[in-house]
């Protein structure tokens, strides 16, 4: 799959909003869970 340019890659053949909206939420979900996990671990260790 050769996109030709970065602009084409972002554009995703006109479906950029849907494709990147999906992957962005994936990143937000995983990053959010990792932040919550780190905070819970820190609190649990401090209160242990």
């Amino acid at each position, binding site marked *: *799959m050769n*996109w030709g340019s970065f602009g084409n*890659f972002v554009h*995703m*053949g*006109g*479906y950029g*909003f*849907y*494709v990147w*909206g*999906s*992957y962005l*939420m*994936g990143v937000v*979900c*995983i990053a*959010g*869970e*990792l932040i*919550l*996990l780190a905070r*819970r*671990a820190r*609190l*649990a*260790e401090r*209160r*242990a």
Partner: protein
Amino acid sequence: MAIDSYRLDGEAGGNWLLRLAAPQAFFPVAGKMIPWFAALAVLFALPGLYLSFFVAPTDFQQGEAYRVIFLHVPAAWMSMFLYVIMACWAALGLILNTRLSGMMASAVAPTGAMFTFLALWTGALWGKPTWGTWWVWDARLTSELILLFLYFGFIALTNAIDDPRRADRAGAVLAIVGVVNIPIIYFSVKWWNTLHQGASVSLTRAPSMAATMLVGMLLMALAAWMYSIAAALWRVRSIILERERDAQWVRELRGVQ
């Protein structure tokens, strides 16, 4: 205490699995496993994303919109797998009355809820350009939404009960009853006339997609598996510390640090 810990280490001939079921024995083991599963998740995700965006060809019907599949299908699979795993841990806790089982069920639930939400979100963003609608009350989408509410219900119920052992038992009943929803989700596209397409990947027939698409999707699914294991192990360590706060071994652990 010295004698107890000696026995714990000394019974090498005993059942190692049973010994590992003690939260105090599992705590350090989980800690050692987390970096390995996290590394595997990255190791699968990188080639998975590369195939998804740079190797897999454009779909002749859906254009580039179909690339949501590489996130959507792994998330949807994990939402179902993790529920079954959660219910198995919960059932094990009910049957054997082992403390760690309930902790594992609680550790899996938030990650399962996260993947369920992600499956619904990516589904909506995929549905809009291909079906012309964000949401439709068909059997597949509705049963997946019910799955999200089952996860929320489990988390809310177990958090609402102060005594952790009672919370585990109440949550276990909910989790086990809710398992009936999993085959409904999976077979919904067969049993009912849904807008959602049928399974693209099946054990009994050749996959209806290009090889590079399939491999990319499977790599992403493996990455999601490894991530889920790492996340659940990390969470269960916190749960163990929270619940065993007053235990002698936790105090000793604190003394060491």
